[in-house]
């Protein structure tokens, strides 16, 4: 922007830099979905691993996918990857221990 644009309403000397709004000021505005889904995914994958329930492991995979889709760009990718890997490992372990197919609840 050239400085001799003073005829319009622009004022170069009045530029103020962008400051990302702090999240501690308004935590209620944040979308809690990715955090909830992350936690749910971990709980389900632990259930699936410990109790050898295949459907728990599959739900954990879904939860980690949903958490990834809703995540903010500022969020740590390591956390996403770790929950994703945990859910995949839960599914794999359930099938290694018991290769029978999943039976529907009906």
């Amino acid at each position, binding site marked *: *922007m050239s400085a001799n644009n003073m005829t*319009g*309403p622009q004022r170069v000397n*009045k*530029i103020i830099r*962008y400051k*990302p709004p702090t999240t501690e000021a308004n935590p209620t*505005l944040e979308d809690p979905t990715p955090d909830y889904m992350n936690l749910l995914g971990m709980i389900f994958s632990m259930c699936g691993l410990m109790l050898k329930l295949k459907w728990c492991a599959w739900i954990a995979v879904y939860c980690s996918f949903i958490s990834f889709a809703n995540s903010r760009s500022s969020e740590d990718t390591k956390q996403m990857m770790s929950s994703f890997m945990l859910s995949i490992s839960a599914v794999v372990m359930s099938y290694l221990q018991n290769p*029978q197919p999943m039976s529907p609840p009906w």
Partner: protein
Amino acid sequence: MKSVYLLAPTLLLLLALPASSGRYNDDFDDGEDLSDFADDNDFAEFEDVSEDATAEPEMATPSRAAPHVQTAEDDEDEATVELEEEDGQDDGFEDSDTQDQDMYSKYDPDEFDGMEKPSPSLKDPLIIHTVPAHLQNSWESYYMEILMVTGLLAYIMNYIIGKNKNSRLAAAWFNSHRELLESNFALVGDDGTNKDAVSTGKLNQENEHIYNLWCSGRVCCEGMLIQLKFLKRQDLLNVLARMMRPVCDQVQIKVTLNDEDMDTFVFAVGTRKAMARMQKEMQDLSEFCSDKPKSGAKYGLPETLAILTEMGEVTDGVMDSKMVHYITGHADKIESIHFSDQFSGPKVMQEDGQPLKLPETKKTLFLTYHIIDKVKKLRLNREGKLKADKNRARVEENFLKQTHAQRQEAAQTRREEKKRAEKERIMSEEDPERQRRLEEAQMKMKQIKVKAM
């Protein structure tokens, strides 16, 4: 003599008993006596041991089993049965004498006392066991897993499609408004990371569905933050939930005005639902605009819109003909327009008591850019100003009263902290000279304070 007579029957009895009672005794006592019966009995064919050595014990066992199975036995039959048994056993004995003793130990005739002979039924059902599903060579048994994987693939497809659609929408919006923005602002697009204040000229992607744009460098406003809040098209769950209740994409524009450019008032106009919600949520609206939302029809606006205002004068000032014209023209697209000099965002839920100081208030304005200049020109008259100032003072007083105790505590702790820090500084001083001098200075300060009080 009598004893002899008594002895004889007893002796006879004793001789007879082994014959009639225990089969157990047969094995041990009657080997020689019963050999005479071998010729007369039915099992004569088994007499010759040497020829059918191996076959006989086995044949003897079923024959032994047959008489053993007879459950209903009369006393009369008992003797004959047992005789037969004895014969059988005798034969067996003869056989086993010459044969391996193990052959006989395999089958203990007493073991099956009273047992019914299992009738060989010709109708034994053949049980065919089903092969476990995972060992079958068919994918059909895994249909639940295939369903799950298909669901995952559908989710991933939807994620990619939704993400692309959102980014295309954002790019289209920005392209269509770029000129207007650049003619109004010196800095268009800034993410705060660059050293120089140079326009990036593009949107800042916060999320797959939220895009930010910061514009600055204009008369009478500090800056403007535009947030494009799209629908969560990348999340399949959200897509399904939206089929239940329709939601729109939103453009939120937040303009921060300079202090001197706006007079003190709080005003909001928008849809009825939005006004009701904002009156509950927004700190400033709930405190300053105590009346319920008024219908917009009084000021020439459509019925669907409502007004929240601090004073009637403000409404008259803001809602001039041009504003009314603009708002009516775009009434279906507007959700809310909020002017405030006490803006602090929505009410923050405090769990651990009140905040210690008033939240930062800025003169902010939620609306489109052609209203900014309008607000600058708006000036309240003297009465209005007094009322506004009184309102503000009242709110501040209330707040201060509530937090008085807490602020005192905080001040006390701060003082103690300072003293402690001072003392520590003195103690940590290595040079004794300097230490002494510091102590003296502290004493002097204390004296001055006491005098002042």
